[in-house]
């Protein structure tokens, strides 16, 4: 299996789990944790693409609500605390990716000359 096939398989596995989570959460979980969503169904298919991508976060949030560990006032504390660091990590990360990509890219094999391994067997028409 080459890298492209591995990436594709990883995406398929991730998306399959996400589809499973979306199916269970949108039919069972949402009614349990959000009373405003009860008996409201039309909007739910719109959430499927998002859940396919961030299903671990959906599961985590669902777990917090189910167990009563959700503290709404502290909900935005983690992103607020991380904002400064993430603000630096993003541009530095982009630069690091570009520099790494440029430094590990292949060099054109200009010094490798063609080599004839065997002479032609016969002349065809």
């Amino acid at each position, binding site marked *: 299996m*080459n890298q492209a096939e591995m990436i594709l398989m990883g995406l398929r596995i991730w998306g399959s789990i996400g589809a499973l989570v979306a199916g269970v959460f949108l039919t069972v979980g949402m009614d349990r944790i959000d009373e405003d969503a009860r008996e409201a169904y039309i909007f739910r298919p719109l959430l499927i693409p998002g859940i396919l991508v961030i299903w671990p976060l959906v599961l985590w949030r669902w777990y917090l609500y189910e167990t009563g560990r959700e503290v709404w006032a502290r909900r935005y504390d983690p992103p607020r605390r991380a904002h400064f660091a993430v603000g630096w990590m993003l541009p530095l990360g982009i630069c690091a990716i570009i520099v790494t990509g440029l430094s590990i*890219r292949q060099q054109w*094999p200009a010094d*490798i*000359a*063609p*080599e004839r391994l065997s002479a*032609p067997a*016969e002349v*065809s028409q």
Partner: protein
Amino acid sequence: MSDKDTPFFVGYLPVPKGLRGLLLAVCVLFISGLAGFGLALGVAQDDPGEGAFRFDYGRQTVTGVVELTPYPLLRVTEGNERIPAGHTLMLAGGGKTNVERRAIPLEGQLARASGVLLQRGDLDMMQLRGGRNGLGPAEGVAPELPTEPLGRWKLAGEICDGKCLAGAMRPGRGLAHKACANLCLIGKVPPVFVSSQPVDGHEFLLITGPDGGHFPESAYHYVAQFVSLEGEVERRGDLLVLRIDPETLEVLD
């Protein structure tokens, strides 16, 4: 709590005096930094080459013998000022399509090909017009044209799709172009090997599969990377054809 004397930037109000220097410095650094970064990235890129559609030549029409490698070739017997007799043209359809359905009934026969030329150095290809206007039978008896085996070779270089490499895309090679190249190859556009050094005077070789078939899907992974490979080389007119041995494909360091 906040100090009411602390300067505070509001976009639609005049800039506070205490922030003017900082704002100016940020603007200068930001603009010059982005410009410098963009310049550095541009300089680091490989030259895309001079390949291009030669619409400036106008529509080209030539006559020749159709051969299938299985990728269709036209061995030109009656050329024009741009495409001389004796030249071998690779043929492709519009976009990422091939012309095999039109070429197969004409195999070994004289045919008239018409279309626009793509050219990159000594590599060229014709994108045919639609239907029989692009490729149709011509009157006359097809001459017998020789194919000269050149033996088994070990080469280093890059596998590309011939159409993008010849000028349909810029860049038409390299990792950034890999997905596009593979889509062309799936469409059976003729693949081309760019050799690190000329093989019998030629830098570009048409690639075919090991058994006279198409470029094998198992080798798509190696497209657009610098690789070494082995294969049988033959000369058809002024075009070299490389029948690769996929088992010998190796990515170079």
